[in-house]
């Protein structure tokens, strides 16, 4: 299941459409890091609203996406984690250290805008 990635201004938005296998997740990570650099994006959003389960491999890949883009000058926001998925993640012992999250896509975009202003980058 491929994840569509849209470019909006200098942000990339990946909207997960269905449950992802481990290889789908790895593909998403690689695609996002390649595109964020190529398109000179300063922000990446991964919308996981449709995921009913976020297991340890998924969390780890989301964290990798955030860290990789941070090393390349872009901020990542994970948005739309469902309340039940969040509870299971906490029980499982997962943390999203150093990562930005938002309730939904709208909040995610607003957060990236605020971070861009703070860093003096203009949202095209």
């Amino acid at each position, binding site marked *: 299941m491929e994840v569509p990635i849209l470019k909006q201004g200098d942000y990339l938005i990946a909207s997960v459409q269905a449950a992802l296998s481990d290889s789908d997740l790895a593909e998403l990570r690689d695609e996002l890091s390649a595109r964020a650099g190529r398109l000179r994006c300063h922000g990446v959003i991964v919308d996981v609203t449709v995921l009913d*389960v976020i297991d340890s491999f998924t969390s780890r890949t989301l964290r990798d996406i955030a860290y990789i883009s941070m090393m390349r000058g872009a901020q990542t926001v994970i948005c739309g984690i469902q309340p039940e998925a969040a509870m299971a993640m906490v029980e*499982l*012992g997962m943390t999203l250290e150093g990562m930005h999250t938002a309730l939904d896509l709208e909040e995610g975009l607003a957060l990236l805008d605020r971070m861009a202003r703070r860093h003096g980058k203009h949202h095209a």
Partner: protein
Amino acid sequence: MASITRKTLVPVTSDVDILAARQQGKTLAVEVGFSLSDLTLIMTAISELARNIVTYAKKGEVELGLLGQGKERGIVVVARDEGPGIADIDLAMTDGYSSTNSLGLGLPGARRLMDDFEIVSKPGRGTTVTMKKWLR
């Protein structure tokens, strides 16, 4: 003694089967009548065990069943493989320990998500993890 009915067997040989196992688990757990939060906990636990099979043993199976004991109902998940086995179970059950480059939350995490958790493993012979969740 608990009775197990409606058994479903999901062969696990690749990452796509992890999704299949978790989906089958969801179907069965819905039938038992679990809440959305419990469904999510069960699916997450199945995901962790099925991934362990793919990562460490390459192939194995996840068996799911409805659990009945008197008036109590629940779900049982058995993850079975004939892989390398676990030499030190206590170590494998420690948060953050991983022999691969994972987060090391799979086994200890799955135990926290479920009510009962039992692991039997023999180095060189394989691993069987049985976990149960009861409807409250």
